[in-house]
């Protein structure tokens, strides 16, 4: 029988300290029961030093004081019941239902921290997912089982883009393959959560969505568990129930800020910008849960969204994410200001997995060439634009003028597309060729003669 503890020594932000504790384990879940109301808050042991224990509380610690609560050690690690019935339900950041539905009952319980996937158990992801968005499908192709974040900025159209992907993405090869969506809202505004809920409704997928929601005004410490609960559900559905799961996670920035807050409460030595030195490993423990396995049919495709403070891609949150994920879709403020939707800044965007998922047999033989050429030419556009700022567009050479035209057309026709417009990949590639034909052939050094023969628009 476990003892109850009545005395809290110290409350520091989301942490409480208690002393004279025996027989608890690292990571053990505790219930903190309000002596008057009987309300229970949950927490977890994050440090044991002799008989002193530090507990991270997942809900707000306000009101907690020395004598008003009882602390019960549960003898369990943080587990959630897993079942197909999770679908269509809404939970808070620690996995409690908030949709007035009943509790989920299941014999299967899973530790929300997961365990690292053995690299020899993985299968390298190679299946193309068509999102219907030209810039993504052509230039930063999404692959089933990939972790591909959206690097955005405050006020940009990342939510719309994520919603459009959810709506248009063809996750399964054919209709019988089960697919589902897991949505983790981490420190988001009620508006944003509402937007997603509406777009799931419109896409008619609400009964396939599992939602874990931590609102901006919810306790910060719960942000640490929100994505873990979501990924645990995703692992269950993908690897136990053979479903193709798309996990949308927003906003990683709020997650990292919560991590920083807890770290600073623990008085840890900070690394860059006050974020803890282990933030890389911590983020990896989330992102690396995406993937495909050799002997399971399902997959987890992970689409985290983060808002870069100051639009700065070198900020630790974006930086460490980019070091872990398999590429990134970067949104650009200047494109957004010019009303281009989706404002995908293609040059810093990258899909590391696209090389094996495109080309003959997957999309079309010319895909790699077209992508490379669009990148190279559009990167040249940036240089020409810089130059035209100085000497004026009129004084540019004839070739450079063509690059200016190409740049404008590329943004207006290729990048820009309607929120409800889905283009298939062949359409996008043809559009790419059409735009490239604005440039003189001698400038197109990434295209093979065979592809030029076959696809370069003849009449102009």
């Amino acid at each position: 029988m476990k003892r109850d503890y009545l005395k809290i020594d110290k409350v520091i932000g989301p942490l409480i300290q208690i002393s004279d504790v025996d027989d608890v384990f690292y990571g053990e879940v505790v219930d903190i029961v309000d002596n008057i109301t009987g309300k229970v808050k949950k927490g977890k042991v994050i440090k044991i030093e002799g008989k002193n224990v530090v507990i991270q509380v997942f809900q707000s610690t306000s009101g907690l004081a020395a004598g008003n609560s009882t602390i019960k050690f549960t003898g369990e690690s943080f587990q959630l019941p897993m079942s197909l019935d999770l679908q269509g339900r809404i939970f808070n950041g620690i996995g409690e239902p908030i949709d007035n539905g009943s509790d989920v009952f299941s014999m299967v319980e899973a530790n929300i921290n997961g365990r690292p996937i053995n690299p020899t158990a993985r299968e390298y992801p190679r299946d193309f997912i068509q999102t219907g968005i030209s810039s993504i499908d052509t230039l930063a192709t999404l692959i089933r089982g990939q972790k591909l974040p959206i690097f955005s900025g405050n006020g940009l159209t990342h939510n719309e883009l994520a919603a459009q992907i959810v709506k248009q993405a063809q996750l399964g090869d054919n209709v019988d393959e089960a697919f589902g969506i897991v949505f983790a809202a981490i420190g988001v505004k009620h508006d944003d959560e509402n937007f997603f809920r509406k777009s799931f409704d419109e896409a008619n997928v609400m009964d396939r969505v599992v939602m874990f929601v931590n609102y901006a005004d919810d306790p910060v410490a719960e942000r640490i568990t929100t994505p873990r609960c979501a990924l645990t559900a995703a692992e269950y559905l993908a690897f136990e129930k053979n479903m193709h799961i798309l996990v949308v996670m927003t906003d990683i920035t709020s997650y990292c800020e919560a991590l920083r807050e807890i770290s600073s409460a623990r008085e840890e030595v900070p690394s860059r910008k006050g974020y803890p030195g282990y933030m890389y490993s911590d983020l990896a423990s989330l992102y690396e849960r995406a993937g495909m396995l050799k002997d399971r049919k399902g997959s987890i495709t992970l689409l985290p969204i983060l808002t870069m403070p100051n639009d700065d891609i070198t900020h630790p949150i974006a930086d460490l994410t980019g070091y872990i994920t398999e590429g990134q879709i970067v949104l650009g403020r200047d494109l957004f200001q010019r009303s281009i939707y989706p404002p995908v800044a293609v040059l810093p965007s990258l899909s590391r997995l696209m090389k094996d998922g495109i080309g003959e047999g997957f999309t079309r033989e010319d895909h790699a060439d077209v992508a490379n050429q669009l990148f190279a030419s559009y990167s040249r556009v940036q240089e020409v634009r810089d130059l035209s700022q100085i000497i004026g567009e009129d004084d540019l050479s004839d070739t450079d003028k063509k690059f200016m035209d190409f740049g404008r057309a590329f943004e207006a026709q290729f990048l820009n597309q309607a929120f409800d417009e889905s283009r298939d990949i062949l359409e996008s590639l043809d559009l790419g060729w059409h735009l490239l034909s604005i440039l003189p052939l001698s400038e197109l050094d990434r295209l093979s003669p065979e592809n030029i023969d076959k696809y370069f628009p003849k009449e102009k």
Partner: protein
Amino acid sequence: MAETEQHEGKGIISAINGPVIKGTNMTTFKMREMVMVGKNRLIGEVIVLDGNIGTIQVYEETEGLKTGEEITPTGRPLSLKLGPGMLKNMFDGIQRPLEKILEISPIFIPEGIGLMSIDEKKLWDVTISVKIGDVLLPGTIFGSVQETKVIENRLMVPPNISGKVIEVSPIGSYTINDVLVKIQDEKNEIHELKMAHEWPVRTPRPSAYRQETLVPLITGQRVIDIFFPIAKGGTTAIPGGFGTGKTITQHQLAKWSDADIIVYIGCGERGNEMTEVIEDFPKIIDPKSGQSIMERTVLIANTSNMPVAAREASIYTGVTIAEYFRDMGYAVAMMADSTSRWAEALREISGRLEEMPAEEGYPAYLPSRIAEFYERAGSFETLGGDEGSITIIGAVSPAGGDFSEPVTENTKRFVNVFLALDKNLAYARHYPAINWLESYSGYIKILSDWYEDNVAPDCISLRNKMLELLYEENKLQEMVMLVGEDVLPDDQRWVLEIAKIVKVGYLQQNAYDKEDTYVPLEKQYAMLKSIEYLYEKGRSGLKLGIPTSQLKDSDIFSQFIKMKYTIPNDDLSGIDRLKETVDIYYDELFKKYEN
């Protein structure tokens, strides 16, 4: 192993903080001793001893651990089992085989699976080359095993033993734990020689002496082999922000380098990248041996989601394995992707120890750890009298892509080749995004004889000339950005045109193209030489007053840019034909102007 006596000789866990735990009752423990922690017998290593209190870094997940549980000593430091069975396999940071772990636990890696290492049941056909009465010194080769199709594992007397042979087992099949030879040393002590022996990971293996490195590691990558060559036994850093091409470059080196043995360490990086290696490497044929490159490869994986303490160890595990093959007389190349994750692991452990941080939270001993690591590279005469080398190529992942951070800066001090990856080149899809202005190789001088003897007498001077051209282009580009290209005089515009061929047609090398992924030195040289030929042709034309616009024939230029794809690696006659085309075009053009 029954645990009978209560706590006898065992430590008691008193504190737990992530991967770092403390124990009491540890006076009999030794510094750096390997220990088993708690009920689940997690593997750990003693990193601080202070009276009866010890601090341990744990190589497995510590969730579930309790104070009061026992810490069991093993009496030995964290060690590897060195013997046949490592090639073609992938191990975690402390040499546990990941395929075996998968058999124990599907999908996920659990904690508490215990120590394991190379296969102890497998039978190997052993040839023994010594006889009774022979005197064996440390490092002497006493037999061999054909470990893979291309690698003979030479069985060595461990570095710390010697003696006279008193017993030899008959030829036959044995496991790594069977006794093959017995020797008696001067103190009449008898030592059993087996296929495998243990070696502590943190102790460099001894060699006879260090030699100068005079041979390049041929990688088949133009920008490296011609512009910034790596010496066998040398040290190289590849720093770059995310997405600039560190991993692809490391993969390319692992695939195509002409080393005998490759040790590839995925240190704190993506799981899928290791999966890719396991799926792809077996299919790639080594141009040297004609066999799959896996036959010569050892893989170490501590992916970013695996325990952080084992990440710290993975680097040492890798380099110790490299030294083991070096001691057999092999040229070993070792890739570590990424050394920054190792440094961060040091930082994390240091933080949990509450040590005084130096720069950016890194411990003050970061520079000395980096130095010690890279110093394990080199060309050596082995104890057995052979020549062996270790080339270390470390990727560096600077925070924010900024090379002025501590890991990049301190690495730069201890390596001789610096391949600086450039975000802007990567954005423009110029791969490999190795910035030719910032990168350098400290081996040009000592390798120039080799290049002159083995490639072409003018190989290095050609390289220098083309590098100068690129420097000049850079200066001119700055001017172009101010006034536009049209204003430049013709000779400078010609430099820009040729530099473009060098950049697009030569420095860019597509890792995913069948022909271009690996290019033999002859072709590397011939390509550059032909570009120089075009350059000089144009310069003669300029002297005749021919404008650049006339000198640049877009068809010829496009042939130059595409020659890497169109001219097969094994038939360079196309380059001669290209030169002929150049001759015909320019002779005609010059005639027009001469008249």
